[in-house]
């Protein structure tokens, strides 16, 4: 991205000045000069287009890990007011509805766990269905699918996957309201029959990590984290059901926008007014997709626990937090001193509620919401805490963010070679797709340290802990 077209407002905040004839809201880009400089110009084009959508409140924003997406840029945040003609966009949520990270803290230290990492890797690889074409062990009939879509993680706990305490530490307590299974197509439901409790492929993973550094002792204490502790991160989403909802509604919303006379700078922004019939249908289906993702990560949590106790009989894995980064949520935010109900799109961005937020579990209320920035399998990840004065509708970065296309990665790296190199660094990779490993090469991502630092410096969230990968099951 050419920074000369931007104006720097603060050390980690930039804007794109409007041309006199340009009818759009403000664009704000969070990040450092090196991070923004490495972004594709398409990020700027996409977020500028978002800023021209009806009913936008405040600015259209990108997080420090932003990159070129479809519809919205990945790392894009935009809030809309339904009462002001605000829209809902499938491209502002993504195909993998409610893709997110479940983070578990263990009672294990890296030193005691290290000798069995090899056996742990094999056990997880065998027990966690991962990769393209893999089905799960759970087969659901149509009535059960509808229950999942209504009840989310509560359905999974009711079926014996995990416990009630897990639910306390999931966004929305494990279930969003407003899910309408009738708005989810039969094909979407059929696709999900064998996909509950599966990880998927691409950038999805289950990773065993060791806490290498604590930045914020007070928040770490609230989160139950300490140096040397083993933590587990599960990154996945709503699987085939969510993908099908995304594809079903992308075309439907594109047609709705044309029929309703919404001017779209680019068709990829397919959207409809929140209060339109199409908008309400998408929201009902999307919420069903969110519940599907929450149930899926709950089942995977159970599978991970079972695998752990086979290797470490005294292992205890507690849910630290479960946070989604592909959603549109209805939230109250203070705008010019007044509370307003907004539909906040976060496409590849994490919600980051600050201390005192009433929806946070009591245990975290003083520290703020746990936020996870998932890095690549060769570098590391961060746990952060939300800030009270977050200027981006309580949003923060969600990952390292790609710096290189998948084809560039394939041309540069070979999966087998990467697996061997990482093993020499003490990082065990288990995968069914060497192509997938090459595409997800650590070098294909931005420097996660810079992203986490920029997230903190921009006031979006503050660093609590750095996690070093030890075992990674890739799809």
């Amino acid at each position, binding site marked *: 991205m050419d920074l000369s077209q931007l104006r720097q407002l603060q050390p980690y905040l930039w804007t794109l000045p409007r041309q006199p004839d340009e009818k759009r809201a403000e664009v704000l880009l969070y990040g450092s000069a090196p991070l923004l400089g490495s972004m594709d110009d398409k990020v700027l084009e996409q977020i500028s287009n978002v800023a021209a959508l009806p009913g936008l409140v405040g600015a259209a924003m990108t997080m420090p890990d932003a990159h070129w997406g479809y519809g919205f840029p990945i790392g894009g945040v935009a809030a809309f007011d339904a009462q002001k003609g605000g829209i809902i966009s499938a491209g502002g949520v993504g*195909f993998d509805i409610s893709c997110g990270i479940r983070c578990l803290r263990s009672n294990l230290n890296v030193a005691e766990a290290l000798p069995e990492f090899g056996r742990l890797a094999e056990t997880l690889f065998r027990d966690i269905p991962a990769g*393209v074409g893999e089905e799960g062990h759970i087969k659901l009939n149509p009535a059960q699918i509808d229950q999942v879509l209504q009840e989310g993680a509560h359905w999974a706990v009711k079926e014996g996957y995990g416990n009630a305490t897990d639910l306390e530490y999931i966004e929305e307590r494990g279930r969003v309201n407003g899910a309408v299974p009738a708005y989810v197509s039969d094909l979407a439901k059929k696709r999900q029959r064998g996909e509950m409790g599966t990880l998927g492929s*691409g950038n999805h993973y289950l990773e065993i990590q060791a806490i290498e550094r604590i930045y914020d002792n007070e928040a770490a204490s609230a989160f139950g984290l300490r140096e040397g502790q083993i933590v587990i991160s599960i990154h996945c989403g709503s699987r085939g059901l969510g*993908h099908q909802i995304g594809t079903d509604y992308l075309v439907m919303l594109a047609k709705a926008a044309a029929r309703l006379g919404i001017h779209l700078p680019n068709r990829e922004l397919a959207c409809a007014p929140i209060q339109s019939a199409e908008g309400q249908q998408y929201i009902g289906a999307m919420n069903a997709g969110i519940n599907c993702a929450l149930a899926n990560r709950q089942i995977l949590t159970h599978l991970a626990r079972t695998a752990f106790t086979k290797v470490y009989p005294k292992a205890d894995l507690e849910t630290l937090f479960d946070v989604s980064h592909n959603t549109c949520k209805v939230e109250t935010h203070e705008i010019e001193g007044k509370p307003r109900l907004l539909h906040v799109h976060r496409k590849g961005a994490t919600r980051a509620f600050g201390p005192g937020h009433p929806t946070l579990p009591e245990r975290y209320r003083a520290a703020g919401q746990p936020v996870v920035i998932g890095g690549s399998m060769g570098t590391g990840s961060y746990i952060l805490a939300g800030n009270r004065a977050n200027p981006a509708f309580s949003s923060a970065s969600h990952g390292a963010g790609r710096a290189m296309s998948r084809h560039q990665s394939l041309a540069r790296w070979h999966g087998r070679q990467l697996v061997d190199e990482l093993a020499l660094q003490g990082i065990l990779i288990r995968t069914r797709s060497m192509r997938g490993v090459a595409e997800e090469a650590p070098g294909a991502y931005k420097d996660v340290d810079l992203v986490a630092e920029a997230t903190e410096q921009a006031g979006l969230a503050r660093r609590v802990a750095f996690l070093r990968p030890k075992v990674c099951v890739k799809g």
Partner: protein
Amino acid sequence: METQPLLYFEHDADIGVIGRGTTVEQAFESAAQAVFAIITPLGAVQPKTTVAIEFEEDDRELALVIWLNLLLGRARELGMIFSRFRLQCNGSNWIGEASGEKWNDSLERGVEVKGATLTMLSVKQTGMVWEARCVVDV
């Protein structure tokens, strides 16, 4: 259809696919091959079972997205991988089929394709060649 070279274009997070042919239908078939080759090398997939695909759409660009997403959806629903595609268009009526086999351990696993998007979407004719392209989410 004749086997066409698999064509892609760059996208940061996902993959751009390109299909070309002397007819719009051939371009769509070629685009489908590019999509499914992301999931597994198609040379190893046996066309044991054929599945019918039919839809109505008068917007050519949206038809490409619908075609690719129907293929992906049906493949996942049936636990299959497709390698051969045929498509005919009569006005707004598109009738096609896809052939392939059930997933099995002999197939090399690539990357799952979640769906075709409206990003960089275009279907156009240049001279005698039709070209269809869009970004697919992986």
